[in-house]
């Protein structure tokens, strides 16, 4: 493995020499991330256990009130608002990932099957939106979904939405914006796997009498698992924590974790509660990432 051989170059030094060089090279970045990443995240965790001050600041004592409120047990009895927001974020994130996967699979196979001449261009066409500002691409759907645009009229004729009204804000608009914005994140890793695929396995399976579904399931799918997993995590995690898309294309009924965090810090000025929601969002991401890294390392061991 090349990485082992790279490490070997440094291994010839004494332990002190290695550590001092590690300190000089990795030290500054480690210090930076310690101050501007670890400390602020620790601060958010600490503040989530404090009480909201009278003028918007924070006060003692330590409580679990913010977390109780997030779980639905507020001062005025059970309120499903925040558990619903949490569930909605996960559901929308999952739906986005599944829809992106369904769209990215044919697209990745399409690009991989093109001749070398067109492959680069087809791939660049996927990369361009990826590099284009997300805010702009999201806001564009407001225009596309506004009343009397042909897309909106077409949707109305299919029985979606109310005639004469815009298609946003709404769950459908949020989901459309999400899939459109995150699709390249799914296509790129998936394409990398499809590109490297050994097609002779599919031929062998077909020769041995497997039908098309079984060829895909047993000969092709195992080969693209790593790309599929990477794409899924690259879409699901950021989609769950999205703020801009539900903010521009959704309303109170489609509020996600990001929107309620922003509310607490901007209008409500309830830092402890905002911090508690942020801490939960962070925990979700860290757990998701840990599961993925564990799965990923298993895949590397496989031949």
């Amino acid at each position, binding site marked *: 493995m090349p*990485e082992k051989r790279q490490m070997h170059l440094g291994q010839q030094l004494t332990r002190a020499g290695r550590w001092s060089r590690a300190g000089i090279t990795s030290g500054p970045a480690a210090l930076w991330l310690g101050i501007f990443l670890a400390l602020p995240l620790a601060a958010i965790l600490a503040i989530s256990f404090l009480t909201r001050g009278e003028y918007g600041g924070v006060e003692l004592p330590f409580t679990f009130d913010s977390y109780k409120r997030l779980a639905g047990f507020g001062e005025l009895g059970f309120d499903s608002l925040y558990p619903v927001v949490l569930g909605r974020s996960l559901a929308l994130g999952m739906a986005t990932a599944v829809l992106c996967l369904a769209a990215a699979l044919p697209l990745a196979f399409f690009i991989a099957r093109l001749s070398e001449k067109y492959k680069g261009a087809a791939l660049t066409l996927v990369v*361009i939106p990826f590099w284009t500002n997300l805010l702009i691409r999201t806001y564009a759907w407001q225009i596309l979904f506004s009343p009397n645009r042909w897309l909106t009229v077409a949707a109305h004729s299919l029985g979606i939405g109310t005639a004469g009204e815009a298609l946003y804000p709404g769950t459908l608009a949020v989901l459309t914006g999400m899939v459109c914005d995150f699709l390249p994140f799914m296509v790129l890793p998936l394409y990398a796997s499809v590109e490297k695929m050994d097609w002779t396995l599919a031929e062998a399976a077909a020769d041995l009498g497997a039908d098309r579904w079984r060829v895909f399931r047993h000969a092709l799918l195992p080969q693209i698992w790593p790309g599929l997993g990477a794409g899924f995590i690259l879409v699901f995690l950021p989609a769950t924590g999205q703020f801009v898309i539900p903010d521009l294309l959704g309303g109170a009924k489609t509020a996600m974790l990001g929107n309620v965090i922003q509310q607490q810090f901007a209008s409500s000025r309830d830092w402890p509660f905002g911090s508690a929601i942020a801490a939960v969002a962070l925990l979700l991401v860290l757990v998701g990432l840990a599961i993925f890294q564990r799965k990923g390392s298993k895949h590397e061991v496989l031949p």
Partner: protein
Amino acid sequence: MRRPGWFLSAIAAGLYIFLYAPIVVIIVFSFNAARFGTVWEGFTTKWYGALLHDSAALSATKNTLLLALVSTGIATLLGSLLAFGLTRFDFPGRKIFDRVLYVPVFVPDIVLATSLLLFYSLVGSFIPALELGMTTMILGHVTFQISFVAIVVRARLAGLDPALEEAARDLGAGEWKTFLHVTLPLMLPGVLAGAMLAFTLSLDDFIVSFFTSGPGSTTLPILIYSSVKRGLTPDINALATLIILISVLATVSLTWLQKNKQDPHPKK
């Protein structure tokens, strides 16, 4: 391998239309004569002219570029050094650091942004330089850029042939000389790719900037967001079209450069 059939091609065409519909609609509407709303009222190029006299847009452009340049410079230096250290020297806790590196990539922007805002307001009373503004935005951008740079540079370093450095050392070059004349030129394409990524991420960032900006440090994404929120968009469409155009040009020329440049040191 079989070429794509008509069915697969049709699905792919539909998906490309889906991906480009928002981009095309912004470009089309930047030429719309209507002042308010999203109704088409005829062709005009006046919004591009109006942009030149829009002092808010001009100062936001200046802020965006300053923020992206400074933060990319710091992040590229720190991230590249980090990548080098992580691939070359074993030290206690390296494996954990290796994993922690992915945290800023996946932490939701809104969580990073609010945690920075809290942090700045907590320590800001002791350190006046941390008053919200350009400085706090730069600090925030570097924080999410470092990881991206380090991951890209590390991929490049891992693919290098150690024999080249060993040869340099065998021929009598010192450690520093080997780094300067062998390792650095070899890792440079990775460093440039990392810097490009960091620069784009900074240009695109809205949330971290939004929460850590102060009066007078408005960037283009913040300007676009507040205009969209207020429904005042005619010259914002023109502005967005220019941004899209720059992204397209940058992507296409980078791809073209990569394709046409013969890599003298192919990856192993």
